[in-house]
């Protein structure tokens, strides 16, 4: 099954190839017009054809929506059959890098992904990433907003859910895949009210954990913003699975009507198991399973192996949750009493000034040392305060205090910074959303510049965190943010931290660009629409190309950032030619002509007008064909430039010589009467001398021969 991202590229390439000339692959004018008119037709028709499927953009299947991602009806062109098309949202980067692994998992209880890729989406008038699933899901067991309790019997859950889904989780483990979207509202009845085949729905259309409520996420992930939870872990999937089982089994929802924040606090307060099961009393083996899966200590949480062992009949007893730090007397923060330091840490950001006062008054110190009796925690707080102070209580000190003290108090919690909550692996998704939705990006620049993630990593005690990788990534980001040039900055951080992010340049905002090749097709389409004037590579595109394939652009970054316009134009050509060559792409006459029209400034870097004319003639010829590689090669000839320069120097000298001679002549010609006088007199003297000599000789001859002239 060729259902990867390459499918989309192939389709695009085919479209271009269809419109290419038989010999050289250039888009002819007639065919190009045809391609454009097809696009216009697509843009007005509500039905979108994508990879053999007709997606009806007017037929929204609201019951099948996956969180914020909307579902639409799709029909296979060959053989019919119903399908669901999930259409991505601009701020949510789909997990297209995981589609190959997902499709390799063949399981009837898992929604079957048929095709995926970018397609022009008429309602948005831009390209969107689309996932087409087979529509054999049936109905959702629970709709969003309904009470999250189904009260199923143990044996039903065991047979219809636990056993088949353990197989799925085993497959996930074997293929190192994280679902990140396991919840009752993403569970379908498979089309039968008898629940004979339950199906787990989509997990690829949005970042992992984005659509999950705090109920389904472990405490530390639940505390993070949904967009910034990161890709998740097998443990978080097992936890969600445990919550799912509890929701199916329980008869009432103890967390109904609670806000996300209150759910987290409830879990911290009483533990996840008690918070999720509430007043329902489970007995026997299922109790062990739920306790194991909902264990708040990640290291003690049951894995799929332990779950399978449990299914095989081995009875394991989950360890008890460690002693919570509950103070015998409360501390008052913002007029509210707190007995647990983790709960207090959650609310620091609500009143940073109060936190500052508690620390400066010594109230916090007394409470931690005497009530909590954990002086080492206060030692960490003191370190955090000095870290937050840095060079003094400068602007943003209170915000930094919240961030660093939170880390010191609850090192498992996500980074709390400027009212945002990130798990480091989720910063990329959050940044992508912020860029796509044009939110304030200063928070991210500050996050990288102040090395906050590194401080968070240093505070971690969880051995499963890949500290080296995180430090390396965020160190790079810090360096990139310091550099203001194109190819660096926050844009570079975005594509480094989020490999699934599309290119977010405004130039290609209506295209779904995931690779340098996509970028070329987008540019070709743009130039076909007459929007191809000016330079192609902007900050986003430079950063995007540098991350996706640095060999295309890294050597040209100095020229792209040069002040001189001619350098930028030539660098644009070189980079696009590199992509064409390295990816063996067909010709792009649209891009080539748009670039050729701007190359005047580059020709002007040759002194000799005849060379300029020759270059222009050759470039125009290659531009008609769309051969960027040859265009770049024509201009990348330092030997010609050197010869041109030397010839120019000679010409300058020649001109100067002419000028001097001309000045001399002009000065002489001004006095016409004297011009050539000396020369004339010299010649007269010579002639006169010769004549006189002849006369004297003649006279002498006459006298010698005794004759007389007179």
């Amino acid at each position, binding site marked *: 099954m060729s259902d990867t991202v390459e499918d989309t590229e192939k389709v695009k390439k085919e479209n271009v190839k269809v419109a290419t000339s038989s010999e050289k692959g250039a888009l002819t004018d007639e065919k190009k017009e045809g391609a454009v008119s097809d696009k216009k037709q697509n843009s007005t028709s509500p039905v979108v054809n994508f990879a053999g499927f007709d997606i009806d953009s007017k037929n929204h299947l609201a019951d099948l929506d996956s969180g914020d991602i909307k579902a639409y009806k799709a029909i296979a062109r060959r053989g019919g059959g119903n399908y669901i098309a999930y259409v991505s949202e601009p701020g949510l980067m789909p997990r297209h890098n995981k589609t190959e692994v997902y499709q390799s998992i063949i399981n009837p209880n898992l929604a079957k992904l048929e095709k995926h890729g970018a397609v022009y989406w008429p309602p948005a008038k831009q390209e969107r990433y689309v996932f087409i699933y087979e529509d054999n899901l049936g109905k959702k067991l629970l709709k969003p907003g309904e009470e999250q309790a189904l009260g199923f019997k143990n044996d039903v859950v065991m047979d219809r859910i636990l056993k088949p889904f353990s197989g799925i989780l085993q497959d996930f483990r074997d293929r190192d895949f994280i679902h990140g979207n396991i919840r009752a509202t993403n569970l379908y009845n498979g089309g039968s009210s008898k629940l004979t085949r339950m199906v787990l729905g989509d997990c690829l259309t949005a970042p992992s954990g984005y659509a999950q409520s705090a109920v389904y996420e472990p405490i530390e992930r639940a505390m993070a913003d949904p967009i910034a939870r990161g890709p998740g872990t097998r443990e978080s999937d097992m936890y969600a699975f445990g919550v799912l089982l509890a929701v199916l089994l329980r008869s009432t929802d103890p967390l109904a009507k609670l806000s996300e924040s209150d759910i987290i606090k409830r879990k911290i307060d009483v533990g996840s198991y008690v918070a999720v099961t509430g007043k329902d009393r489970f007995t026997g083996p299922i109790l062990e399973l739920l306790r194991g899966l909902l264990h708040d200590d990640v290291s003690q949480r049951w894995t799929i192996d332990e779950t399978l062992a449990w299914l095989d009949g081995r009875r394991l007893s989950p360890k008890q949750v460690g002693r919570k730090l509950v103070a015998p007397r409360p501390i008052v923060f913002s007029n509210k009493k707190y007995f647990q330091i983790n709960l207090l840490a959650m609310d620091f950001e609500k009143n940073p000034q109060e936190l500052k006062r508690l620390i400066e008054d010594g109230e916090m110190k007394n409470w931690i040392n005497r009530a909590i009796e954990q002086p080492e925690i206060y030692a960490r707080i003191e370190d955090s305060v000095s870290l937050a102070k840095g060079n003094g209580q400068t602007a943003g000190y209170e915000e930094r205090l919240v961030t660093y003290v939170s880390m010191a108090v609850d090192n498992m919690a996500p980074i709390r910074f400027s009212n945002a909550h990130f798990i480091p692996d989720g910063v990329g998704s959050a940044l992508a959303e912020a860029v796509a939705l044009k939110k304030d990006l200063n928070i991210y620049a500050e996050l990288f510049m102040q090395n906050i993630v590194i401080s968070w990593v240093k505070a971690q005690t969880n051995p499963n965190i890949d500290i080296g990788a995180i430090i390396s990534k965020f160190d790079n980001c810090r360096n990139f943010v310091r550099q203001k040039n194109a190819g660096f900055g926050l844009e570079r951080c975005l594509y480094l931290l989020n490999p699934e992010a599309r290119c977010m340049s405004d130039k290609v905002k209506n295209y779904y660009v995931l690779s340098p090749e996509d970028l070329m097709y987008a540019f070709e389409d*743009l130039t076909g629409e007459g929007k191809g004037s000016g330079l192609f590579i902007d900050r986003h595109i430079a950063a995007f190309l540098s991350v996706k394939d640095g060999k295309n652009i890294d050597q040209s970054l100095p020229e792209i950032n040069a002040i001189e316009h001619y350098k930028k134009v030539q660098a644009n050509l070189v980079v696009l030619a590199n992509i064409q060559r390295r990816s063996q792409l067909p010709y792009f006459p649209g891009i080539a002509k748009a670039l050729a029209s701007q190359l005047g400034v580059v020709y002007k870097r040759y002194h000799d007008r005849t060379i300029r004319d020759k270059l222009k003639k050759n470039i125009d010829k290659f531009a008609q064909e769309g051969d960027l590689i040859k265009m770049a090669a024509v201009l990348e000839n330092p030997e010609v430039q050197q010869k041109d320069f030397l010839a120019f120097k000679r010409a300058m000298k020649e*001109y100067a010589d002419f000028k001097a001679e001309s000045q001399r*002549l002009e000065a002489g010609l001004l006095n016409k*009467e004297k011009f050539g*006088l000396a020369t004339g007199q010299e010649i*007269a003297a010579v002639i006169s*001398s010769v004549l006189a000599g002849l006369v004297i000789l003649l006279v002498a001859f006459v006298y010698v021969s005794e004759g007389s002239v007179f």
Partner: protein
Amino acid sequence: MAKKIKNKKSWQGQIILIFSVLTGAVFLPSTVMLMIGMLPTPFAVLVDRTKGKNKVITVGAMNLAGCSPFLFELWMQDHSFHKSMEIITDPFAIVVMWSAAAVGYVVNWAMTGIVSASLYQRGQSRLKSIQKSQKELVERWGPEVSGNMPLDPDGFPVQHDIMAKHGPSGPGS
């Protein structure tokens, strides 16, 4: 040094002068005749203010040619003071000798006019040719080839770079 050279020259001049005086004394009849017959030449020396004294050469040479028949006559018949006086008192001889000098003036005038006019024409056509070549150089290499404007190290007008900074915005923008 210059003084020494001057002294050396004056010393040579003195030798020549002494030699000339002695020769003139020895050949006194010829000297007397030439002094009268060659009178237009010293006059030309006074009139000619050019550096090379070419007019003097022109007139002098022709004047000498005009004197030569009478000089030979003096030498061949009777190299005496009496014969010398006879020649110089003959108006025909004087007319011939001085007319020859006049021919020298005519040669000088004619040749100077012809050559000067010719050189002036050549100068003008050369000027046109230079202007044409300069125009061709400008056409091929641009006005910067004249060196009349400030250039960057690559030889391009400095202003050119400043203008080149302002490029249009890109596609899709």
